[in-house]
């Protein structure tokens, strides 16, 4: 069975997927199998340049990214899917800027021509893996595969920056909710904490550990305030910063955070009935073992709806 109907997903795994983010790669493959999602890896794809190449020389950076778009289009893809937010935004930005700026389009294609390639902007839709799961598979499609709901696990969805900014239009730029709904679909208790789309520090760890560790601290502090058992991410960079530098944060600030950082695909796999090993749980530095024991077989009791305080003033409804 395939849920691909009408889509041909060119899969762009990104450089980190084999090593640092192997858990992301393994769990993505696993849930894709269960969901009947066919992700066709773009053959011989190259690095997107991260944020570094654009800092050095923009035109080669665009050409570097565009090679992947050209290869994917050549393989008949209708969209390119990236699990990494940084890869995603680079692919998205290249397609968009080539579309909006004919001069850039001409220059990039002159460069691609040296490799006998060509890319016509707008040929492909660049999308994040989360977008595919919540919009193409859909919440109902996900719910249908849930066999072991994650009852009573307090999950803090962490979106970070680049999946929603600058202008991908897939979710709210300041207060995204798609992953919240996905986690609810899996049976988890969603922690709606304010910093869910704030920055993890990105490459700041290389430049100023003072700045980077403070940014990571804020996120851990906020998630801990809201009693999250686990933070769930959509990007290898976010996962790395929050996971690998958590010990440094504790040392620097005298704190004692122990919040495991998992990929959304890993917790999906668990809810689909896979073992932690199936979804590469154990690769994280801050172990998720303790958090996962919180999962219960029975759903949590529905909190009693508190009667409105008579004196309180009405609140505006949120726009959906």
């Amino acid at each position, binding site marked *: 069975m395939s849920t691909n109907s009408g889509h041909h997903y060119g899969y762009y795994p990104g450089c980190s997927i084999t090593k640092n983010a192997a858990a992301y790669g393994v769990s993505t493959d696993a849930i894709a199998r269960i969901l009947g999602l066919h992700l066709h890896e773009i053959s011989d794809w190259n690095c997107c340049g991260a944020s570094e190449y654009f800092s050095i020389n923009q035109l080669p950076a665009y050409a570097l990214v565009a090679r992947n778009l050209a290869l994917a289009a050549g393989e008949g893809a209708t969209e390119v899917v990236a699990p990494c937010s940084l890869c995603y935004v680079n692919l998205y930005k290249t397609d968009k800027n080539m579309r909006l700026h004919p001069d850039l389009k001409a220059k990039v294609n002159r460069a691609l021509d040296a490799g006998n390639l060509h890319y016509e902007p707008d040929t492909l839709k660049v999308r994040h893996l989360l977008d595919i799961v919540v919009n193409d598979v859909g919440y109902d499609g996900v719910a249908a595969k849930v066999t072991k709901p994650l009852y009573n696990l307090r999950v803090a969805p962490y979106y970070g920056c680049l999946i929603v900014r600058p202008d991908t239009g897939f979710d709210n730029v300041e207060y995204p909710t798609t992953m919240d709904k996905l986690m609810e679909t899996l049976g988890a208790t969603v922690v709606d904490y304010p910093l869910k789309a704030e920055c993890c520090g990105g490459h700041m760890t290389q430049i100023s550990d003072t700045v980077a560790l403070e940014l990571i601290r804020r996120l851990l502090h906020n998630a801990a305030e809201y009693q999250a058992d686990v933070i769930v991410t959509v990007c290898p960079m976010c996962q790395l910063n929050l996971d690998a530098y958590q010990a440094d944060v504790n040392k620097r600030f005298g704190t004692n955070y122990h919040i495991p950082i998992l990929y959304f695909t890993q917790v999906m796999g668990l809810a689909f009935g896979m073992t932690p090993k199936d979804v590469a749980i154990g690769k994280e530095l801050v172990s998720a073992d303790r958090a996962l024991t919180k999962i219960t077989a029975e759903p949590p009791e529905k909190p009693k709806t508190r009667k409105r305080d008579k004196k*309180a*003033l009405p609140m505006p409804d949120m*726009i959906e």
Partner: protein
Amino acid sequence: MPEEKVGVYICHCGHNIAGAVDVEAVAEWAKGLPNVTVSRDYKFMCSSLGQELIEEDIKEQGLTRVVVASCSPHMHERTFRTACERAGLNPYLFEMANIREHASWVHPDNVQAATDKAKALVSGAVHRVVYNKPLDAMEVPVEPTTLVVGGGIAGIQAALEIADAGYPVVLVEREPSIGGHMAQLDKTFPTLDCSACILTPKMFDVAMHPNITLLTYSEVEKVEGYVGNFEVTIRKKARKINEADCTGCGTCWEKCPKKVVDEVYESGLGYRTAIYRPFPQAVPKYPVIDVETCTYYQTGKCRVCEKFCPTGAINFDQEDELITYKIGNVILATGYDQFDPRRIPEYGYGRLANVFTSLEFERMVNASGPTDGQMVLRDGVTVPKSVAIVHCVGSRDRRYNQYCSAVCCMYSLKFAHLVKERVGGEVYNFYMDIRTSAKGYEEFYHRLLEEGVHFVRGRVSKITGAARQPGEEGKLIVQCEDTLIGKQRRIPVDMVVLSAGMEPRHDAAEVGHLFGISCSVDGFFIERHPKLDPVATMTDGIYIAGVCQGPKDIPASVAQGAGAAARVLSVIGKGSVRLEPVRATIDEANCSGCRICNTMCPYSAIDYIEDLKVSRVNPALCKGCGTCVAACPSQVITGAHFTYEQITAQIDGVLFDVLHQPVAEPV
């Protein structure tokens, strides 16, 4: 080509045209165009001297046609037509070439191109004008009744001015009471007058005025006709109350068990019942039953209001009424909607309980509001010790509205003053620029400085409840760059007020379409001229006043209401209007009676005369669009002033430089 004596006048418009078009060269060149007797250029053709030039030439040189090349005909066509008429020339023998908006202003850096284009446009007008026919404007009587749409302060002012002059007014208001946004306010800047104290007497005057028919809870549904002779259909929504029996005693809404949030008058900060009168001073005094929320209409049970009404005024079976009026002129004063700050997610409105909009705050500090004037947090109890007021919310922001809403600076200052006066505490105004440019406004700003209000020059970046450092817990943190020191600041406060801007009514485009007027790019109604004709529109007989034309404060709205009324009164006083004689006529002798034109006409102005087997245009109904003219397969319908010959000649004229080239052969 007919032989005529054409006078051509090229306007410099100071540097506006002469800066990009070689006007002398165009005037000189035009002398060589067929039929041209006189060709001149002049600094300002619209000046009295410019107009006299035309008049003299008509008289002395015997001109039979006149062409002026200057600005848009929407600007000065009337001016020059009148000049021709004064000199005894039929005004429709005049033609205008727009070499300013369509040439000099759009090709400013290319004198050659702008001049060539000006020549083409002049040539088009010269070729066309010789085919123009003298036409007589139709003089039609004006209905003395004026329709005013919108019962806010601008509409109230307009209605009273006209009614006081002795003419009938129909005032239509969508809500159950007149008063508009001004009725929601507590104090008005900069004098801190009580809003209700100055508004209520005017509302009462409207209710009592013998010349005003007040239709609240009503909307205009259909508009037909033309200036002086509109026929307007108004839907008077069923109040479910027999007004004749109702005393406005209030028993019904005191007993009504159904409470809902009042999104209109209380701006969502308070509740009302399903049967309600929006506020104590409402005009008229009668309540309405909101059938969307009333338990009886939803479930078929309840009727509590009916049980308790001492006069038996509740009428659940009352139906909407459609009323038709003959109307001479219309004044639209439909007001504004407040910008919805939920659209700016970083400000947290709707998520963070203690972030309020400015209208919520107005209701809160209003003695007749949901908190009886107590300044409290969303819990309804806690008095804030510190308040942040955020300027420019939804204004001066290309993501939402590029324009400045003009009133927010001043009402933000008023809020700061009220906080200081009522609860003391710290007040922070976050601003980009403080704009206080009217009488007494800057002085009010200085007064606030003396009161110790903090002014932070920086647009707020975000409002969050996420504490980062000690002192921030449990507070709202307002984060911005204080641009005067170049540093990021996080200021913890108890309450945030978002000074939300003004937006066109959500249905402004539809209302505009109903009355045949347009909206500008920001969505407000377009005035006829931004400086010299701010209350008229391009459609004769339709005027605009107040914020529906653009953001403005109360004094400016009142002035526009009175201004629009004055314009209408001058039309009524004259008793008749002249209609453009741009009408279609059918040459009945050659009409085949196919009736295609009958179905084409959007105004059903063409009747089929069964006896004669021909179609005939009713000139009173015809608006001159010309659709029938183009559709007639026998080509026997003439569209006056836009005839086939006139436009064809104009095409030849604009193609003057390529017209006589041989047609290129195919390859």
